[in-house]
């Protein structure tokens, strides 16, 4: 058990309880589907379909690597990555489904609220991979088997160490309001990124919308994706990232770029990234095979080692360099709140930041 990435208990021990805990805490309404293993029959059927459309909000380079690793294991099943921000992916799927276009097989979002909507629309297929039933805490998968938490992200602050000295680096969200950072920050957009939708919700709830009103006066550079802000500080285009994918900052740092993560004292916003299979998936078997592999030991370990994200699989082995989730003061995730408030968040955000 020492090798565990973190357990639910670890997480709950933290100052804030993980919302994933609260989300699935309700008693199961129906019996979850029986756990499914990867059978030769499944592999055969998947190979017949030959392809799988994977809609995701993961960083593009990693998502392609992820897909290629799967293809190496199961030759003949090509994963086509359709990457965009989670909110964009959500829009895309909605537009496609409204026009009766069933193109998506497996989705991985970074905004749990999306699964609430898809589940409500009755668009998802119930499927619990064997590994999930055995090695995931119940907090990390839907009791009805419609979604599994694939990855857990944080959206910390980060800075470029060439441009900002360690002593002078901001320690909290409040520090970012210091006039000396005016014109030096970059921020991602909640109408594009699911991670940022959640972080915006959490920061606005904990620090108030006034915080964003003050932040907007700092001439913040506004990019779209939470995967772009780490790249912008790694390039040195801006000194500080207000929000964005923490895992990419770690990846950039490990690639030798001058970047450093700061977990703000007010708490670090959290975004849980679940995956789901669509009921009308054009390649149902390839979808199940990929979904199963993705949540198995191999896929999850890759997520930890290469993507530098947090896994819910208890057997994944930690790779040093990432702070344990239990050691980070986290903001509380609230998918229902995000689901209800998304439109309002986008509206207010556009008003404050003008884009």
């Amino acid at each position, binding site marked *: 058990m020492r090798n565990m990435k973190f357990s639910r208990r670890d997480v709950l021990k933290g100052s804030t309880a993980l919302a994933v805990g609260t989300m699935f805490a309700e008693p199961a309404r129906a019996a979850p589907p029986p756990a499914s293993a990867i059978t030769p029959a499944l592999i055969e059927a998947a190979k017949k379909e030959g392809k799988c459309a994977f809609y995701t909000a993961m960083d593009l380079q990693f998502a392609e690597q992820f897909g290629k690793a799967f293809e190496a294991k199961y030759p003949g099943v090509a994963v086509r990555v359709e990457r965009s921000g989670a909110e964009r992916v959500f829009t895309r799927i909605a537009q496609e489904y409204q026009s009766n276009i069933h193109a998506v097989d497996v989705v991985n979002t970074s905004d749990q609220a999306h699964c609430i909507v898809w589940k409500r629309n009755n668009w998802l297929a119930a499927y619990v991979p064997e590994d999930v039933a055995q090695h995931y805490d119940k907090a990390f998968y839907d009791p009805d088997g419609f979604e599994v938490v694939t990855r857990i992200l944080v959206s910390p602050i980060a800075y470029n160490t060439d441009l900002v000295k360690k002593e002078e680096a901001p320690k909290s969200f409040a520090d970012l309001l210091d006039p000396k950072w005016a014109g030096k920050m970059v921020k991602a957009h909640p109408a594009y990124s699911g991670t940022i939708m959640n972080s915006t919700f959490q920061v606005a709830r904990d620090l108030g919308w006034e915080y964003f009103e003050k932040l907007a006066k700092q001439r913040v550079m506004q990019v779209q994706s939470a995967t772009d802000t780490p790249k912008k500080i*790694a390039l040195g285009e801006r000194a500080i990232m207000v929000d964005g994918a923490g895992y990419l900052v770690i990846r950039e740092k490990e690639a030798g770029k001058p970047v450093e993560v700061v977990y703000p004292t007010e708490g670090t916003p959290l975004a849980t990234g679940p995956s789901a299979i669509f009921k009308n998936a054009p390649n149902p078997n390839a979808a199940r095979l990929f979904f199963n592999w993705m949540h198995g030991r191999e896929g999850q370990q890759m997520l930890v080692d290469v993507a530098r994200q947090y896994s819910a699989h208890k057997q994944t082995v930690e790779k040093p360099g990432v702070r344990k989730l239990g050691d980070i003061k986290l903001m509380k995730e609230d998918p229902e709140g995000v689901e209800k408030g998304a439109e309002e968040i986008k509206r207010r955000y556009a008003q404050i930041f003008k884009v």
Partner: protein
Amino acid sequence: MTIAVSDPPARMTHGFDYTKLVLYGIALVLCVLIVLPMSWLIYYAFVDKNGAFTFGNFVTLVNDPTLLDPLITTFTLAFSTSLICCIVAAPMGWLVARTDMPLRRTVRLLVTASFVTPPFLGAIAWELLAAPNSGLLNKIYRVVTGAAADEHLLNIYSFSGLIFVIACYTFPYVFVLVANALDRTPGELEDASSILGGSTWVTARRVTIPLVLPAILAGALVAFLQAMTLFGSPAILALPAGFHTMTTKIWSLFQYPPKPELAAAASLPLLILTVLLLRAEHMILGRRSYAVLGGKNSDPRLIRLGWMRWAALALCFIVLLNPVFLPYAALFNATFSKVASQFITFSNFTFHNIHFVLFELSATKLALYNTFVLGIATATIGTVVAVVISYLTTREAVSGHRALGFLATAPVAIPGIVLGVGLFLSYTRPPFVLYGTLWILLLAFLTLAMPAAYQQMQSALKAIHPELEDASRILGATRLKALRQITAPLLRTSVIATWCFVFVGTIRELSAAVMLFTSETKVISVLIFDLNESGDLAAISVLGLIMLVVTSGIVALANRLRLGGGSVRLRDN
């Protein structure tokens, strides 16, 4: 550039013409292409969510500052761009057409190169060059001047930066109009002025400039129109700077939860203004005809610039640095560099980016396939339809040909993004559910390409006097036989040139495509736009260079055929 039919050739009245059927068929197709999406657009602009008639959308548009500000920004942007374009392009056009400046052909060719560069690609290249901190030019500036790490010379993420980048890819429109007008203006008028004792400058002021003034004004309007309806560049540069233009706003209204009513209402001002501006352009250009009176004109006399001709050339090259040399150098650098914004050195040279785009990026293959299928289909169908329409209108083969010509040119007035909205509203519901197929993109691209294709074919057909066909028919050939044996061979080069221009225009279209694509119908331009949003600049550079190679190959082919060129207007997006 709406072209009205002048000097009617001999009317063919004898016999029954099956061409009538063709006319009605094509008119019907054009109506569906244009009228259907525009009707839905107007319908949506005047209804609320429940389908009841309302002016509410326009009230929201005017009262909501997040909607009104972009409108004001857009007009300021378009006006400034248009002004800059005229100041830069008009003198250049004159230098190329009327002086003994060296390398005039090369300069024209390079302007064509900026013409065919997709504006969104230029905008991304300028991000690499002039982002305040990581931009290559700013890095050079800091090294040269020893300025502090957070100082910068240029900031592309600003209103002025956006104007600059849009002007880079819009000035060719003014240049081409001015240079062409000057090419067509007979030298005799200037000679007369000189003979009567006018000095070079008096001649320029009192003869040459008045002659090209209509062209400059028309160019200003075109530039205004382009800047107003452009989507890619503002989306790439304005959003990071914290402001919207009308096109990016319309597009954001389509994000979840989509507000098609508001998007439609916001599209109408763009549409109406475009129509008005094109009317104005038509009126101004209509006056131009007096300049080309007379029989065979002598070549214009070139003004000797003396030593200043080298200065003039230098000036032209400095201008051309901005749309051509610097951006492509930046893209080239990013293609082979480990870090997009670092200069290539031995230590950071890499082929990884090329490998990633060609072998790892699973979207590349599909996007390339879609782009080429659509490019070839649009170019082929578009050219065929354009040939038929221009034949019917120039030969006045059937009554009602004027309406046909009007329909074919009408899409000029539809900004790409507005057409995108209209098509989305039309074809995501029964009876025509085309969303999700390449057909909807084909419709969009065909509609957008039709005016340019029609203009090209029409001018080509006008150049072939009908007496050649008449002779054939007098000798007993049917209309079709005359067409096949006489007209078709004469038209061949124009047809190929038109095909090439439509193809080039299609593969770089973004604004309509971005409204209409689905995951399986993604094209290269949309893929590049996606990659920009996630900050994958190196991958964009590779795709951008692939596009450059394809486009310049095609353009070189079209240029070898020595046709089109001048009056072609590629759509920007």
